[in-house]
């Protein structure tokens, strides 16, 4: 079953009716999201707190899954072991112990069965050589994000799960990061809250996430043609049902154009 109009081919990530709820929370962070990812690149856009990172964390086995299922590279995330083809930039997965970045890269190469030299070269290329002697928690937010991105991209991943990879990253390095991601042969699910970013990702698939629910699939190329409307519009590409009511996404017509909207949360407020 193709849940989101994904490309046919071998599944890299299969999320079905996923529910994530953290201890003590009264609502689900992810409330019944489904996504099918093949060997392709998809960007997942949503405002802060919409559940994007929780979805990624569930796929990495790091979030408390209360329902539904997640399969990564064809294997159930609950039972997958020793699958080295998945990379992520989430900083928490690199905190096995306190190590300077240089030794962290070396250790990670050992754990992934790869070579550290390409990561060292990437770090130098990004002008980050000075971070090699410092642990991740001593880096600036942008530096830590870049190191996480480089570790994710290293060691020949087949699936990259990237959480806000450009947060606090300056423009030239952001552009270089995008080049690396576009060139990477890996399937990618990338989360961001920046709609502006979509213009830099032509050919990528596009999904939106609001209030823990996922809607799509669209094309990032179509961002200037997409509209959002209140209620269920006949012929809509997708309909998102939130606690505030339904929001329909349509092409070339509708209440609010996504063109020029920088934040999806703001868009929802306007539609509501």
């Amino acid at each position: 079953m193709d849940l989101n109009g994904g490309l046919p081919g071998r599944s890299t990530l299969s999320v079905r009716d996923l529910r994530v709820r953290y201890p003590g929370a009264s609502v689900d962070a992810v409330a019944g999201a489904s996504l099918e990812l093949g060997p392709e690149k998809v960007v997942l856009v949503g405002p802060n707190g919409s559940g994007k990172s929780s979805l990624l964390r569930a796929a990495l086995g790091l979030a408390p899954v209360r329902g539904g299922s997640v399969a990564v590279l064809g294997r159930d995330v609950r039972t997958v072991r020793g699958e080295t083809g998945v990379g992520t930039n989430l900083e928490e997965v690199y905190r096995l112990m306190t190590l300077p970045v240089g030794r962290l890269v070396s250790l990670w190469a050992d754990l992934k069965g790869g070579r550290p030299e390409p990561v060292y070269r990437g770090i130098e290329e990004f002008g980050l050589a000075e971070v090699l002697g410092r642990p991740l928690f001593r880096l600036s937010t942008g530096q830590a994000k870049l190191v996480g991105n480089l570790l994710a991209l290293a060691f020949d991943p087949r699936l990259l799960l990237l959480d806000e990879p450009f947060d606090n990253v300056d423009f030239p390095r952001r552009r270089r990061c995008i080049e690396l991601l576009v060139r990477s042969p890996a399937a990618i699910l990338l989360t961001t809250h920046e709609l502006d970013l979509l213009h830099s990702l032509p050919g990528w698939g596009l999904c939106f996430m609001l209030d823990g629910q996922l809607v799509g699939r669209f094309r990032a190329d179509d961002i200037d043609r997409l509209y959002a409307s209140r209620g269920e519009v006949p012929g809509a590409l997708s309909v998102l049902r939130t606690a505030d009511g339904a929001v329909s996404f349509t092409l070339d017509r509708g209440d609010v154009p996504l063109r020029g909207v920088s934040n999806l949360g703001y868009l929802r407020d306007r539609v509501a």
Partner: protein
Amino acid sequence: MSLIAAYTRAVLTNGSLWFWGVAFMALWFVLGGYVFSGGLAPTPSAERLYASAWFAVIALFSLTTLAMAIATSLTYGTSALGFGFRYTRLTPVRYTTALLVAAGTMAFLLGLLMAGLVSALFGAHFGTRIVPADLLAVAGVSVLSGAFMMGLATVLVLVVVNHLGLRNLSFVEFLPLLLAYLFGFSQLFLALPAGFLYLCPWNDMESLLFQAYSGSPARQVLTDGSSAALAWPGSVAGLLGWVVGLVGLAAVLLRRIRPVSVQEGRQI
């Protein structure tokens, strides 16, 4: 860099461990050698047994700081382990082995340093030579104790992380030290049943450390030479049983590790 090398280096360069495990324990030895030794009979045998008892108790505390350091590190690493077991070649057995080597190496150093401090401080104060009777045994018991501390810390943290929630974490991190104080001091002055002393790992470590340093069998009451002697094979068997049980349990619990945020822990 291999995981074993990385962990060993990280443990050996842990400043907190060196402060609480060595510098703070040196303060206890100064107190034991120079302040509390006033009423001691000035005979070489009494001085040796006195120094050995101090060595056994304080080395036990020193080794216990290892459990606290490992527990804290593990708490911060649950997400890394959860990811690592799924998406790298890391396995619970490989992780446990690395921790065992790191803990054993640090414990080896702690044991020898404690013995060196006792020899230097007590020897200088009493004006006599008080060296360990069996340095190899001191090293061996220390390494075995390090393995116990690693197993204990890992099991305690994983039980909390997997089943109880991080609110209990600060208590669990201190539990090894609380038990070390309770059982360590108890054997100094109380006549605990011999069966209990063999079954209790803290008393096993204390008895073995005492015998390794003094060259005499540990007693049911460590400071009472007339109380019943303990057989060291019984203490070794008791401690080995705990090490095997805890390390095995740790490897099993690691397979089901639940990644948690340290921010779930209790804050003032």
